[in-house]
């Protein structure tokens, strides 16, 4: 499981990051590295703060401690305008797609171009149609977001995320709640886009099978710590009980089936206080 040494090829490095929400410690001194041109997955059960980590990387949240360097820039030291310039090069795909519901598919994909560039409408049209073609939804350009299925909405959001030709994309739970076909489509798209556009991809997910099929490197998070890291093969072979439980989906193990409670017998036999 050895530590990777940071090198020239690192696009993002998270070092000694701690973050808490109220009294709850979400991350406790974690360090991660994301290599350029690779697909890196962050896995872990729900509630481990995977989405929070993406928000920290995007500068939407401020860590209590530690730093996140993206392409040589410390995200949390940047001024607002510099952060916004950096974000133009960071695509993010939200779990829900986060499409603007008052605009058509076409306008949603055109949105970043219209906001950030002064391109003529004919050029915007070409770019939008190219990106929609890449996700296979050129024919759906006139639909409204409420007319799309969940998988289609995510593909539109993906087209929107790549329309400014970013250097990287962060995927927040891209496979959750998808039928097998849309899941397959998304797996294929993430891999293909990463290769053809030379992107760096970060996938946050708890879908073990799909994610390990395309990831080059995996971090497994739990309880605010990195409990395992390595290539998918190394993770599968991991001797950590915890990682094994997560990868195989066993009901009991280091993560208990039961929510912490007082003794069962005592609880049943006790009288008095109602819940």
């Amino acid at each position: 499981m050895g530590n990777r040494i940071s090198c020239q090829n690192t696009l993002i490095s998270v070092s000694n990051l701690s973050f808490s929400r109220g009294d709850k410690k979400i991350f406790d001194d974690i360090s991660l590295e994301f290599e350029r041109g690779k697909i890196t997955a962050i896995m872990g059960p729900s509630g481990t703060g995977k989405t929070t980590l993406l928000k920290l990387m995007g500068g939407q949240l401020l860590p209590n401690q530690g730093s996140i360097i993206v392409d040589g820039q410390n995200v949390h030291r940047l001024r607002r305008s510099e952060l916004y310039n950096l974000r133009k090069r960071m695509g993010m795909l939200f779990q829900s797609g986060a499409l603007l519901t008052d605009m058509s598919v076409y306008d949603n994909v055109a949105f970043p171009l219209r906001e950030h560039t002064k391109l003529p409408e004919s050029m915007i049209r070409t770019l939008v149609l190219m990106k929609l073609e890449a996700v296979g939804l050129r024919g759906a350009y006139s639909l409204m977001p409420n007319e799309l299925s969940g998988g289609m909405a995510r593909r539109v959001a993906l087209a929107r995320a790549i329309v400014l030709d970013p250097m990287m994309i962060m995927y927040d739970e891209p496979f959750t709640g998808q039928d097998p076909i849309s899941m397959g489509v998304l797996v294929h798209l993430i891999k293909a886009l990463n290769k053809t556009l030379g992107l760096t991809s970060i996938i946050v997910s708890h879908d073990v099978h799909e994610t390990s099929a395309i990831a080059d490197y995996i971090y497994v998070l739990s309880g605010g710590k990195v409990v395992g890291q390595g290539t998918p093969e190394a993770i599968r072979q991991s001797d950590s009980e915890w990682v094994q439980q997560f990868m195989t989906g066993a009901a009991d193990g280091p993560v208990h089936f039961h929510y912490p409670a007082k003794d069962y017998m005592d609880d049943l036999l006790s009288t008095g206080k109602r819940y």
Partner: protein
Amino acid sequence: MIELLAHLGKNTRSSFSKLGRGTFFLLQCLAGIISVLPRPRLLLNQMYSVGVLSFLIISISGLFVGMVLGLQGFYILSDFGAETTLGVMVATSLVRELGPVVSALLFAGRAGSALTAEIGLMKATEQLSGMEMMAVDPIKRIISPRFLAGFLSMPLLATLFSAIGIIGGQIVGSGLLGVDEGAYWAQMQAKLDFYDDIINGVIKSVVFGFVTSWIALFEGHDAVPTSEGISRATTRTVVNSAFSILGLDFILTALMFGDD
């Protein structure tokens, strides 16, 4: 007792922190207006949904309020044989008080609640976060145009309310109850002062528009992003707007007409 004190302390603290957040939000929102000006289309779209779509409820309510004023005013004034001053009574009450206040209350119910729900849902569905990640400031792109639209629409709607109300009063007064039409308009023209009455009424509605839009947008932006949170935020918008409108109306009336 201690619990009560602790509860009181907690509530006071959270209200102050909310006030602070609200003020900060307002400042951001005002600063964002600069970037709305070069993009009039954003403003026009919002003027349509905030202002034009409130047109119907404002005009119908204005008509009925004016008609009721005409009816009630006639019964009181005719006791003194002063029914010819009906126009003055209807116009003064509408222009000074009822126009700005009632239209602002309706505006809070119609447009304010819609703004809160819209912004709250955009927050819940991560549209605002998504925009931030696309390097688009949601305050500038979403909030400020809506704020400006509410702020500009309110005086227009209040003026419309008063104008239609005056016509309503005339329909009932001279149409049904036989007040001389010439007297209705002439007395109104003679007694109503442009600065004291009309401009002061417009100032009131500007203030109400400002406060209502601020409350509505802030509540939406500050809402807990769940269905319950948004429903509470929408309720708070209507309740807080109503309180603020009525409270401010008293203060403004005292300042404007206190010397008379």
